[in-house]
């Protein structure tokens, strides 16, 4: 008799031994099985095509929302800084930029502009 034959001969005895477990143990095993089944969640189908674990979709959705929430304060801070930088420019600097620009020759012929320029410089 080789090993496989010996194993095959022993198997029915082991099966019989397993079936002979006491009522108490059998009840406990059944309770454990039912508890495990309570924890089991049937796979769900996505778009009727792919079956995935029930927690998968919630996990994906949660992670997207979670990431958005993490980036939200950073985005708000950047937006605030950009807004402030636009509205807090120095007026003098703006004037200098304006005056340093090349004006069209017609501007100097314009009487009103020359009057304004004389007052501003004066």
């Amino acid at each position: 008799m080789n090993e496989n034959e010996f194993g095959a001969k022993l198997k029915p005895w082991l099966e019989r031994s397993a079936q002979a477990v006491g009522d108490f143990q059998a009840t406990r095993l059944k309770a454990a099985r039912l508890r495990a089944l309570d924890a089991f969640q049937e796979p769900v189908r996505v778009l009727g095509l792919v079956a995935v674990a029930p927690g998968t979709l919630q996990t994906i959705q949660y992670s997207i929302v979670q990431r958005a929430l993490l980036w939200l304060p950073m985005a708000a801070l950047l937006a605030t800084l950009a807004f402030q930088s636009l509205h807090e420019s120095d007026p003098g600097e703006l004037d200098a930029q304006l005056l340093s620009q090349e004006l069209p020759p017609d501007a100097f012929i314009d009487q009103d502009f020359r009057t304004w320029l004389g007052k501003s410089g004066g």
Partner: protein
Amino acid sequence: MRRALGEPLATRKELSDFLASVERRAFKQSVFSVHDEEAALDIVQDAMMKLAEKYATRPPGELPLLFQRILQNAIRDHFRRGKVRSTWTTLLSNLGMGGEDDDADPLETLEVEETSNVPASPADRLEQSEVMAAIEAAVQALPERQRQAFMLRYWEELDVSETAKAMGCSEGSVKTHCSRATHALAKVLKAKGITL
């Protein structure tokens, strides 16, 4: 362990049927290992729970190997935690390592009965229960790894590769453990005059 694309996942009923089919064997395996029925029940319960919670996305065909891996890990963890200290001594561990005084292969000389029907008479039933007790004791006395390999190969009917995965060892080790276990068991049963 990769799942083929489109392979259907285990349903609640499939999982239920599988657990119902394996729970008693798992319990006996655990009892053989930890020698404590209460601890064995806890181990099986933990293994069932883990399978249901963590591996809901697996097809039913993968459940036996997955469950065995979880169960063997749970038994190993039990020993690691040191909740139970083994106090038994093994006759077969010595026989498995040594045996120089008997060169004959017990598997070659072990008698095998052709049938293993349920005995009719009370005397026969008593005899069978004694045989069963002797077999249980012999299996229980095997060294842990030998018993694991033997149980997975010949009781759970996993192949060598699957057994190696479940045990976390090489296929060569599985073959060695199985060979030693079967020879040790055959030797003990022969010494007790037991025919299967």
